[in-house]
């Protein structure tokens, strides 16, 4: 039982990281109708910026907190310099331009931080374990990721459902032209939303850094999963992104924790270990295909 709980928490922790990435992606896609492949680059930049600031301030929390406004400004800069020119273009142009941005950011990191990866240490405050239930230990840092992720999710829910900005975001997701016609400053709204997305991506990147590593292209793999999540959840829907991220997180952990042992009962260990992640990856795509057949706009997508 304890074991099951810990593995489920691992799934929740992974799901929340992916939710942070997917939230920004689904907002930009839903509201601005912008396919932003470079969202993974913002995740990477968040981690590198945090690495630098943590080194300068000699404190994880301070460095991480300072990294957030910097990623926000970076997001705004990217929006003003590049994205703004792409809104009126079709999706293929956006894919090409943002793919170019991925290459640009990867080379930028190589030039500024060098080709070798960096590592961020888990802060001393969180490098122990917490007893979540009597006798059940869980790494404090991972627990902190869950807490921060959950707080951000609540904050986003509040922002979208209860504030004027959220109302505009929801309105933008259902009908962009209409809110423009009603006199809303679309340019400012878009910049803000993009910057917000960048902050969440950067936060996911810097929180993931101590449990993986800070390296060039670190956002590229997780971006694909984030795209799948927003398609499952429904483009433009924060709630959808949250639900889909949780489901995908659990599928991933099943594929890593339970499936290999099951497969080992009738396969060689090495073969079972290769097959299990492949099967869980396939499951994610099967889920996406199933959702698209059942509800073509995703679980919580706007139906036009």
């Amino acid at each position, binding site marked *: 039982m*304890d*074991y099951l709980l*810990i*593995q489920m928490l*691992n799934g929740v*922790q*992974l799901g929340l990281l992916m939710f942070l990435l997917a939230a920004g992606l689904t907002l930009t896609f839903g509201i601005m109708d912008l396919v932003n492949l470079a969202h993974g680059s913002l995740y990477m930049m968040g981690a590198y910026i945090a690495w630098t600031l943590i080194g300068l301030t000699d404190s994880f929390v301070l460095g991480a907190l300072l990294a957030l406004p910097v990623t926000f400004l970076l997001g705004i800069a990217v929006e003003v310099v590049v994205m703004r020119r792409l809104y009126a273009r079709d999706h293929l142009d956006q894919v090409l331009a943002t793919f170019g941005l991925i290459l640009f950011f990867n080379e930028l990191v190589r030039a500024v931080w060098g*080709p*070798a*990866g960096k*590592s961020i*240490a*888990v802060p001393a405050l969180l*490098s*122990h*374990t917490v007893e979540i239930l009597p006798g059940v*230990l869980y*790494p*404090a*840092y*991972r627990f902190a990721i869950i807490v921060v992720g959950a707080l951000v999710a609540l904050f986003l829910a509040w922002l979208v459902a209860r504030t004027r900005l959220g109302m505009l975001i929801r309105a933008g997701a259902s009908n962009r032209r209409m809110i423009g016609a009603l006199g809303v400053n679309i340019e400012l709204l878009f910049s803000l939303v993009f910057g917000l997305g960048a902050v969440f991506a950067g936060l996911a990147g810097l929180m993931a850094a*101590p*449990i*993986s*590593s800070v*390296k*060039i292209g670190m956002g590229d*793999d997780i971006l694909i999963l984030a795209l799948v999540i927003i398609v499952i959840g429904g483009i433009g829907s924060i709630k959808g992104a949250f639900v889909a991220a949780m489901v995908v997180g659990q599928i991933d*952990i099943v594929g*890593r*924790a339970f499936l*290999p*042992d099951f497969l080992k009962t009738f396969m060689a*260990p*090495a073969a079972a*270990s*290769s097959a299990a*992640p492949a099967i869980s990856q396939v499951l994610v795509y099967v889920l996406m295909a199933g959702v698209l057949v059942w509800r073509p706009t995703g679980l919580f997508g706007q139906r036009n």
Partner: protein
Amino acid sequence: MKTKLFGPTTIAALATLGLGSLPVMAQSPIKIGFVSTFSGPQAAIGEDMRRSVELAKEHLGGKMGGKPFEIIYEDDTFKPDVGKARSEKLVLQDKVDFIGGYIWSNVLLASLKTVTDEGNTILVSANAGPSQIAGELCNKNFFSTSWQNDQTPMAMGEYLNTKGVKSLYLVGPNYAAGKDMLAGVKRTYKGTIVNEDFTKWPDQLDFSAELAKIAAAKPDGIFIFYPGAHGVQFVKQWAQSGLNKTVPLYQVFSIDAITLPQQGDLALGTLGAQEWVNDLPNEQNKRYVADFKKKHNVYPSYYGAQSYDAIMLMASAADALKGDLSNKDKVRAEMKKANFKSLRGDFKYNTNQFPIQNFYIQEAVKDAGGMMTVKTIATAVKDAKDPYYEKCPMK
């Protein structure tokens, strides 16, 4: 002013280039290609190897067999296909006399035939030792200055028997070397294997799922093989999960001079097996470690020591043949003698051209200056042969 594409200067330049490339055998230097990982998260290993190769060059006075030699470094970027392409370039374009290096078994396996068969060039592996090349794929043009993958974990297994560790949980990456390493420890370890997990290589750096399984299984020890950046992550997460207080970690290639600066105190007291340790008491090793430390302010690793040995092995053949490497049969015959001062002490080559050598148990400790390092605490096995040499058709 417009520049004509084929102006007189261009033609002159082309002509000079053409003349320059005419073979001038007497003065032409010996060329050595060196393939390793110089970019990405594992670049620290390649850098340690490069430093050791440069130190070997310095100790040789830049000459082998009376001729100057040059080293051409190529970056495999940690990918088999890139490693193969870079090896091909060294053989076909640079026409090197030897190729050394190769950290990764999968990169070596991808590159082997291109170098040894199509290129008829002698390859000295300074690290990777996949079981296939020790057995049925053994090759007259292949020499190792490291070990066969199974051997180091086999030595660890022997030691765990004497230490009385009753049960073991095995974790390693799912690629050629990972499979060999876990197979190796199972060859000698007599206790219970609780479970064995293979993780996705090289993508997986988050070991939360595996550590949770280990915590639930409550083994007497964990055995891991996670080189470089992966070893850093595993040790950190092992400590964060609290398992460092209950389940000791036994390792091969996961806690070393490359990873210790980042693992720090978390690694203190962990045991591992290795064929070379920085405190082995022979003269050449003392000189190598001292010079390396003086230059770079860090300890060298076995990756570096094996690379140093690879260059010294090539030099021993070139010296014996007075720099004439044209007859490959003679070069191979000289190399087979292993007639050089290896940093691990003298060794002999087996029929498959892998070393017959000792393996030691090392502990992670702090040196007098407070720097993390490893020191020898026991000899695990003596004059060990790998378990595949009888499958090699070469006799």
